[in-house]
């Protein structure tokens, strides 16, 4: 048994889980269970939102440590499901590392929904929530259009690898700008309803929920980090909106 390879596999799974949207507790628990399925004297795992460190002490031999730095998240619950499945399988069957590596490569390659599907989903979200918060049907349609544009914008900005604050500021500003423009030309009625729909699209809901779960689970550092991250993004969204509103002379809420 090559413990270095085992550790690499376990960390690959942990890293992918964290990127795909798992809570810290789940990542630590999965990595611990995976390595503990083999003859391990001791495993120490420390995870925060941007880093995983694992030190493994085999029954015989020197301890090994590996670290992963996580720079970017991409929520993919289907991948998370498969990873969860794989880690359960590993604990039960204890397969060799070649098999695990092959499975990880397969999960890594799982394709996300096509861009057009994601654009349509974004339009659906923005349009739905505009109507949800009391907007008229035409406002919903405008909101859906803006939602589609915002998703394309997010996609384009992601390619440039700019930071999340700037990207959210731009998206929120562009969404607000188009909303104001549509209302000015008389196509839309209620600018606030159109913007609310798009805020629901941008809001870091998953980060906020996971941060609370981390905090209560006792992962205080990770929870605080995620909470700050969510707060900063929310502020960026507010900033983009406020910037545009001031240009257009404020809104009557």
């Amino acid at each position, binding site marked *: 048994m090559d413990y270095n390879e085992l550790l690499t596999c376990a960390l690959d799974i942990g890293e992918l889980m964290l990127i795909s949207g798992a809570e810290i507790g789940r990542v630590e628990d999965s990595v611990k269970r995976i390595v503990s399925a083999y003859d391990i004297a001791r495993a120490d795992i420390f995870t925060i939102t941007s880093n995983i460190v694992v030190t493994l002490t085999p029954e015989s031999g020197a301890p090994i440590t590996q670290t992963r730095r996580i720079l970017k998240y991409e*929520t993919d*619950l289907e991948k998370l499901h498969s990873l969860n*499945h794989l880690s359960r399988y590993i604990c039960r069957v204890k397969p060799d590392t070649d098999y695990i590596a092959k499975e990880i490569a397969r999960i890594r390659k799982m394709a996300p929904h096509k861009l057009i*599907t994601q654009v349509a*989903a974004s339009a659906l979200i923005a349009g739905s929530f505009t109507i949800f918060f009391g907007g008229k049907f035409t406002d919903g349609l405008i909101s859906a259009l803006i939602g589609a544009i915002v998703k394309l914008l997010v996609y384009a900005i992601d390619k440039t690898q700019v930071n999340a604050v700037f990207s959210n500021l731009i998206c929120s500003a562009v969404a607000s700008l188009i909303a104001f423009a549509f209302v000015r030309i008389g196509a839309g009625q209620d600018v606030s309803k159109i913007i609310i729909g798009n805020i629901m699209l941008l809001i870091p809901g998953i980060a906020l929920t996971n941060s609370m779960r981390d905090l209560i689970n006792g992962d205080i550092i990770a929870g605080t980090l995620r909470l700050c991250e969510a707060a900063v993004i929310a502020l960026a969204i507010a900033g983009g909106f406020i910037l545009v509103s001031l240009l257009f002379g404020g809104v009557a*809420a």
Partner: protein
Amino acid sequence: MSAFVQILTGFLGSLGFSVLFQLRGKKLFFAAFGGFLSWSLYLLFGLFFQSEPLQYFLSAVAVTIYSEILARILKTPTSTFLVSSIVPLIPGGALYNTMCRALDTDFTVFTESAAHTGSLALSLAAGIVAVSSVMKIINTVTVSFKKR
């Protein structure tokens, strides 16, 4: 009528997010159905209680139980269903109002609005965490019971 429209659009919004979170097949449907459930229950609790945070809390409790149960049946992380299900409960409207208040010069109105948004987010989180914690206890008990 407006309640019906809200429940329908809440469902569609959750469906959209389930797609953005890359769910497929029946998991996609169950996650979106959670959105339908969360807002229906929010409105239902509104008939009995006059407190918005309490409605948020109870609805979050119900929808987390729903997600936990489904997750155990379909052998998948709770997040799979929970994340999309709570989408209609995310206080985006309240947050927007707070943002508008930030543009006003009246600071007291702004802080009041911000506190309101915060209380809703907190109630939502408290509901989720309350159920997760209880589930954890149940898990520990059943595992140690099986070991005997």
